């Protein structure tokens, strides 16, 4: 039952041994796919998400074009084998909603006005789901956009904060999401402190919300460093080769 399952141990750590304000082990890699113009793999613990960017490229059908900017198209999709019970590959209502909130979370970071009448396509595939897949998805997508060489204001990094057994915890996994009292995914442009994605699924007092937002920002700053490191790893090597 929600709120009744014990998710915080006596010593104050979580079931997987993390402290409340600790991220799961993070792994990020840029340029993991050959065909895509940009791609990235992001792992947060057992959550594994891959993102690819194609474009700017021509749009079909043509009537979708905008005269003054590129459009952004985004698909968030879960692999059938990513979950405990097989997930049908047909897009669910959840995936339709998340594709929208992720696209809206990326719109303000991309200089779309540089590529009028084109599309920039972002494909996010959740390969293994263990909580925080939309935030891992947007984190991977912004890396893939950078890898595609698309001019951006900043990167976007995201993490979900949860409330379990009355305690606010950073980067919740599936169990904490399922049995916890609240799940709040947040994504930001870290250099500007602008929130590009914010959802709350659960119950918080205004004071708890305030604290949860601070906790999210703390995690996002750490993820931002991982993102920059992953980009440096690919592109500093290339420089040496030349």
């Amino acid at each position, binding site marked *: 039952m929600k709120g009744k399952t014990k998710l915080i141990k006596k010593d104050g750590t979580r079931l997987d041994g993390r402290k409340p304000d600790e991220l799961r082990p993070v792994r990020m890699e840029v340029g993991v796919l050959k065909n895509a113009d940009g791609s990235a793999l992001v792992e947060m613990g057992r959550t594994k998400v891959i993102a690819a960017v194609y474009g700017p490229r021509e749009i079909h059908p043509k009537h979708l074009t905008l005269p003054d*900017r590129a459009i952004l*198209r985004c698909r968030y999709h879960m692999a059938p084998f990513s979950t405990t019970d097989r997930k049908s590959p047909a897009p669910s209502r959840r995936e*339709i*909603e998340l594709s929208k909130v992720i696209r809206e979370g990326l719109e*303000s970071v991309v200089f779309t006005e540089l590529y009028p009448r084109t599309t920039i396509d972002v494909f996010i595939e959740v390969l293994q789901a263990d909580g925080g897949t939309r935030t891992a998805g947007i984190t991977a997508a912004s890396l893939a956009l950078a890898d595609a060489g698309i001019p951006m204001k900043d990167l976007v990094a995201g993490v979900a904060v949860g409330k379990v057994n009355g305690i606010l915890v950073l980067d919740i996994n599936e169990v904490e999401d399922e049995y916890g009292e609240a799940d709040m995914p947040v994504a930001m442009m870290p250099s500007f402190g602008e929130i590009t994605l914010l959802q*709350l699924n659960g119950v918080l007092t205004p004071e708890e919300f305030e604290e949860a937002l601070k906790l999210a920002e703390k995690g996002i700053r750490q993820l931002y460093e991982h993102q920059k490191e992953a980009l440096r790893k690919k592109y500093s090597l290339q420089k040496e080769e030349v």
Partner: protein
Amino acid sequence: MSLTPSTFPIIPLVKKKSVMALLEKGKRLDGRSLNEYRPLSIELGYIPKAEGSALVRLGNTVVLVGIKTGIGSPFPDTPDEGILLVNAEFLPLASPSFEPGPPDENATELARVVDRSLREIRAVDLSKLAIIPGKKVWEIWVDIYVLDHDGNLLDASMLAAMAALSSAKMPEAVVEDEEVKLNREKLKDPVPVKHRVVIVTVGKVDGHLIVDPTLEEESLLDARLAIAVSDDGRIVGMQKMGMGTFTADEVRQAIEMAMESSKMLHQELDKALKGKVK
């Protein structure tokens, strides 16, 4: 796949400038202040054939919600609980930008935000909706019908859903040999509503925050933040919508505005339901 929409309606630059100039003075085109709602009315029982219904008018926005109930099998992880389902239809008669077909991403998002705002605080007590635990439970359908779109569909939909649910009566369920039959002639128990929830959507344009945007205002907004507030003053859901961003300070301000406006919306709900609900 979700894609950048072309803005609708298209607002002439001159108008945009005059809206901005007014906002600078704390005013809006229709004479409202930044934290003021349009005239609101809630009419109960608009569809007598439904178990519960409410027609909400918010300015020129009109949303109708009908509640239907049925018998279903429980989800395996909650064998002793009823099922709440929320669906939204943006009807083609409501706006030149709506097209026939299955719910698009906007309708899907709206339905899911309303659903979550009800679900997380357990506004409807699903544990009271098992008929034969583990086998037969009540299914409560909340169908949101947008009839006329002049902005802020989410707040209007939540009000209509809440009013309809709170005034709904379920048919009598007769159990015979593990089978459940519904006597639709006899409406008996109310839907067990434990908490009332309202949604306040705060729009941001050029650093100004406004509540209850009209369609025209919506097309000028950078972003919107929907905040669901329960009758006991807790935040029970949130959703950032639109292409722009919010700073942490703006979110704080938006929450303050939402807390304030939510009191008015809860009062309006009370007023509409008073005497009609036990």
